[in-house]
């Protein structure tokens, strides 16, 4: 290819033919993907923009342009504000738990030789399991009178907690289930990061008299894991922000709206109440958050961390 470009004005006919074939093949190979990209991403996005500026309701006949009214309504809507706040609280609980829990487990597992693979399998198991099925089991585990968790609390002398039907605990309970699901995933990412840290660094640190586990962690492990940690934090944030499954199955936004989250509200507005225009505007609010998270990730990963 570069050879062809370097050659002066006149190209041999066979080479020109070659180039032409290459261009045609390239386009041909990319065509199915391009068509699907148009049909399943770009065109829907364009339609979504238009919808968000209208008062369209799915199944209705007429449609009026209302400008930015949907967005104004969304930002002033107490239900949407609450669901956005709930989503952010959920993120705020799940990210530290899911990241630091995974980091701790990864560090502890990393040095094991015989038991490592056993622990890996156990911690990774929830990642592969069908969350909806396991949510049903969690519901039973957390049942106020029949569940073993409350049985344990009673045995320890505490009063039982109705985890999922108490507004003050429902969201946090869902976040713990979220942590349960993502911990193994993050652990594997941290293990990959830990493996990449050269062993002699620890030996050098030993010689420099930094032998305590915490010292070693703070001077070597933590700084060198920087890029991994950054990546894990962002992916966990995005996953947490997309919380939907457990809400749809376990609480349906209740009790009294304490677990209403953004995606669940979009689902209700768009596919249950068919307020299509309004849901389109909400979708853009959702997308804005995802894009900000992704932008931070790209920026942070590009910059890496310099020493």
């Amino acid at each position, binding site marked *: 290819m570069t050879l062809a470009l370097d050659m002066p004005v006149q190209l041999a006919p066979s080479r020109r033919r070659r180039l032409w074939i290459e*261009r045609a*093949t*390239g*386009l041909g190979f*990319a065509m*199915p*993907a*391009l068509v699907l*990209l148009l049909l*399943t*991403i*770009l*065109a*829907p*996005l364009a339609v*979504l923009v238009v*919808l968000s500026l209208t008062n369209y309701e799915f199944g209705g006949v007429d449609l009026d342009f209302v400008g930015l009214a949907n967005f104004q309504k969304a930002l002033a809507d107490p239900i949407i504000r609450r669901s956005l706040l709930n989503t952010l609280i959920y993120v705020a609980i799940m990210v530290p738990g899911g990241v630091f*829990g995974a980091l*701790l487990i990864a560090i502890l597992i990393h040095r*094991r*030789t015989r038991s490592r*693979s056993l*622990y890996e*399998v*156990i*911690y990774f*198991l*929830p*990642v*592969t*399991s*069908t969350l*909806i*099925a396991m949510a*049903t*089991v969690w519901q*039973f*585990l957390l049942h106020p009178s*029949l*569940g*073993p968790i409350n049985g344990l609390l009673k045995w320890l002398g505490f009063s039982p907690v109705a985890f999922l039907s108490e507004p003050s605990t429902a969201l946090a309970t869902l976040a713990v289930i979220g942590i*349960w699901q993502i*911990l*193994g*995933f993050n652990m*594997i*990412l941290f293990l*990959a990061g830990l493996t990449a840290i050269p062993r002699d660094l620890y030996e050098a640190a030993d010689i420099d008299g930094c*032998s305590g586990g915490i010292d070693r962690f703070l001077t070597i492990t933590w700084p060198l894991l920087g890029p991994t940690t950054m*990546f894990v934090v962002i*992916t966990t944030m995005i996953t947490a922000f997309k919380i*939907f499954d457990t809400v749809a*199955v376990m609480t349906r936004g209740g009790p009294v709206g304490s677990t209403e989250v953004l*995606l669940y509200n979009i*689902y209700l507005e768009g*596919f249950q109440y068919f307020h299509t225009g309004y849901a389109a505007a909400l*979708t853009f609010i*959702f*997308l804005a958050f*995802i894009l900000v998270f992704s932008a931070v990730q790209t920026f942070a990963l590009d910059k890496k961390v310099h020493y």
Partner: protein
Amino acid sequence: MSAPVPTVATVSPAHSAARRFLSLVLIHGVLVAGALFMLAPFIWMLVTSIKPPSEIFSAEIALWPKQFYGVENYRFAMEKAPLLRFALNGVIICAGILVVQLLVAIPCAYALAKLEFPGRNLLFVLVLLGLCIPVQVPAMPLYIGLAQLGLLNTYFAMMVPFFLSVFAIFLFRQFFRSFPDDIINAARLDGMSEFEIVWRIVTPSAWPAIAAFAVFSTVAHWNDLYWPLIVISDAKLAPPPLGMMFFADAETGSNYGALTAAATILTTPLVLAFLIARRRFIDGITMTGVK
């Protein structure tokens, strides 16, 4: 790897042995406690699925059932809900999605990596942007379009948003870029068409990436609830998560024995596959993170 890091500090051997033992106890204590937290739902699911209702609803909570009631629970679950049908739907959808994803992504990735054609850079930018857009964003226009075409409640509707995997294109492009140009040029001189080069030379070399992606895609779509919930209302077409949801609703959460039996049946295929191909699974699912 197992060699302990030599310590320079001078401590008596007995003292250091005691410290080592203590730290081992502490480490395994934390790990076992965490492992119990991870395993508790699975253990509880299995034991509940073989308990009779009288023991499930008794105030005293015991781990092991006094009376084995597994046959009744599993039979009841299978009779009440087409669980095997749900699993079959899951297989059909995952296989359909994966086949189209590979057929679309591999040639496109090869073109992006190795061929010069107009619009290549634009396409790559679009792929990168596509990586940031979750399916929940185009969901509503896609739903309206499918409704207009009368395609709701079909396998096609469940699969179509996922036919294009920008992630697969991105991943395979990275992989193909490192494929030696000399081999491709030699194949061209031998008179092979680009089509043959893609499928007979380049693709086999990318086998690890394809296997990892297959795991990633299958796990994601076997477990997906959001999109099937929107386009499927016919229980006969439900994939496992949606089927589980229908079943739980129909049973109004009362018959825990049957519910956990159903959960066991629908969770088993992937967990079993995971236990058999452990490395592949871990690599595949966490591939998104290893760039």
